[in-house]
């Protein structure tokens, strides 16, 4: 790869709610935007669109988020936004030069401002059998159903925490699958305590109530204070073992129950995708409520690297409503930086967006308390359980490394190959940090985070060698 990098006013990485909103707002104010996304369709995970040739049947459950997303996508498509789809942003160099690649070729784009909106991934939680085909994440299950109308199984158990479990159950039920149980790890006691702070957010509460009612009507057991313990089946899932758990989500021995299922959907919250921001040199801090390592940002959502803004779940997991608003705010800040939005108009727009974010933050704090992440979930794995899915390294190798003196994830990586595979440690990193913290008695933050290396996603050498993506 060689040549003079193309230069652009603003590059947005990520075509989900945050990236779409940032691109739309910046473009509306006359900024020329290039939007990069790895998928063939815009929308990210939450607004995932069906492929060309597919459509949700009228009145179908699959439609709601898709339709909301399509409106935003059409605004972006109608604006001065250069779309680069099926294009992975695999590195950031010199702070604001983005390296991108398609399947065939690669190139560099230098930008005056950069908006990173990479989103989040389901928090991977190792447990015995979690690599068995038929175990899948809540996000993966949703994509399968939302984009393609395909069920992950006929008899399905859902385990995890948070409102997304209801959404997954809703799709499964609409598709005709049998949901044998929903295991919510949080105790969800004394819900009345949250009522006053939920009142300003009735729309969310009502949506949650509708999902709850649907589950009740379908006769699906909703088991609070329960976790997945084990996936059964040699080559694919044939059953699931669950048990009660305590308030920090540690399983309680002797309370196990088994179910015959052909799919296990697991969703213990989300972790931000921070690899690109870290490559750009943005400072991160540990925030357990926001899903772990979170970019440090100012009120304009600008990171510690000037001109690099980070919006949405990629900078702390807060959901799609916050992501939309943050994307909009970042778009305004980009327009301001480009001199396209100034003076009173700028201040007015910015303070409106900040006001709406403040309103949403109240709801988010309630959800954070209600579904407070329990690190006990990382005791589900036993020594034999695969920790690093790529390199096939079990938990006991990580524990052995800590006994030999490792106190940080990158040390364990160098000694054991955990985190050295194709996923670049995304699947094992959070669990490894918690295992180290438990073994050393230090904090999870002290256990550190894998150093990201370009390419942050696998890119074929053939594509790297050919310029012109």
């Amino acid at each position: 790869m060689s040549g003079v990098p193309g230069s652009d006013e603003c590059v947005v990485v990520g075509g989900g709610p945050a990236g779409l909103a940032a691109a739309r707002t910046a473009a509306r104010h006359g900024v020329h935007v290039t939007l990069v996304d790895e998928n063939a369709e815009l929308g990210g995970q939450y607004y995932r669109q069906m492929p060309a040739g597919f459509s949700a049947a009228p009145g179908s459950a699959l439609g709601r988020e898709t339709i909301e997303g399509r409106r935003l996508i059409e605004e972006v498509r109608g604006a001065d936004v250069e779309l680069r789809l099926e294009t992975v942003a695999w590195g950031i160099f010199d702070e604001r030069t983005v390296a991108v690649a398609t399947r065939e070729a690669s190139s560099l784009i230098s930008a005056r401002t950069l908006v990173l909106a990479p989103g989040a991934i389901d928090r991977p939680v190792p447990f015995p059998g979690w690599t068995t085909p038929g175990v899948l994440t809540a996000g993966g299950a949703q994509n399968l159903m939302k984009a393609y109308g395909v069920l992950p199984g006929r008899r399905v158990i859902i385990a995890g925490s948070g409102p997304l479990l209801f959404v997954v159950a809703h799709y499964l039920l609409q598709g005709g699958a049998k949901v044998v149980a929903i295991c919510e790890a949080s105790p969800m006691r004394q819900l009345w305590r949250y009522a006053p702070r939920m009142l300003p957010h009735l729309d969310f509460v009502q949506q949650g109530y509708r999902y709850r009612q649907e589950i009740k009507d379908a006769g699906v057991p909703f088991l609070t204070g329960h976790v997945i313990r084990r996936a059964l089946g040699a080559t694919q899932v044939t059953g699931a073992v669950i048990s009660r758990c305590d308030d920090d989500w540690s399983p309680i021995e002797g309370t196990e129950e088994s179910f015959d299922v052909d799919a296990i959907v697991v969703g213990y919250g989300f972790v931000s995708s921070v690899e690109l921001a870290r490559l750009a040199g943005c400072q991160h801090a540990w925030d357990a409520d926001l899903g772990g390592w979170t970019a440090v940002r100012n009120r304009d959502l600008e990171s510690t690297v000037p001109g690099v803004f980070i919006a949405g779940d990629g900078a702390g997991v807060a959901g799609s409503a916050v992501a939309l608003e943050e994307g909009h705010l970042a778009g305004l800040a980009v327009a301001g930086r480009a001199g396209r939005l100034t003076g009173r108009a700028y201040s007015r727009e910015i303070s409106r967006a900040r006001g709406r974010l403040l309103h949403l933050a109240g709801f988010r704090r309630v959800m954070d308390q209600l579904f407070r992440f329990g690190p006990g979930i990382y005791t589900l794995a036993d020594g034999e359980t695969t920790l690093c899915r790529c390199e096939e390294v079990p938990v006991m190798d990580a524990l052995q490394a800590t006994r030999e003196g490792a106190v940080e994830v990158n040390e364990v990586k160098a000694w054991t190959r955990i985190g050295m595979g194709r996923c670049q440690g995304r699947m094992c990193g959070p669990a490894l940090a918690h295992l180290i913290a438990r073994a050393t008695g230090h904090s999870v933050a002290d256990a550190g985070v894998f150093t990201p290396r370009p390419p942050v996603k696998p890119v074929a050498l053939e594509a790297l060698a050919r310029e012109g993506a």
Partner: protein
Amino acid sequence: MSGDDLRMTGAAQRGPALAIVVDGVPVTAYGGESIAAALMAAGQPVMRWTAHAGQPRGYFCGMGVCQDCLVTVDDHPNVRACMTPVREGLRVATQQGLGDLGVSR
């Protein structure tokens, strides 16, 4: 959900039906589906066997991150089934280990 596959009936209108070939056997798919969606719909969640322990793996994260749904497509190994669309006649092989690049190592 119909009797023989995991596609939701009534919920979605699909693209045109086509045939892909999975380990030598024709499998029905619909234009626009990902390879992973077609395999899951066909009740075939095993997409590869790992290099060291020979364990089965399949569709896990569903968003191109976990690298577990790697299959060999038209003799190209390590293709993410969840991110790659089907087309008529596409040859998918359950991947063994690291896959065969067709060059000697």
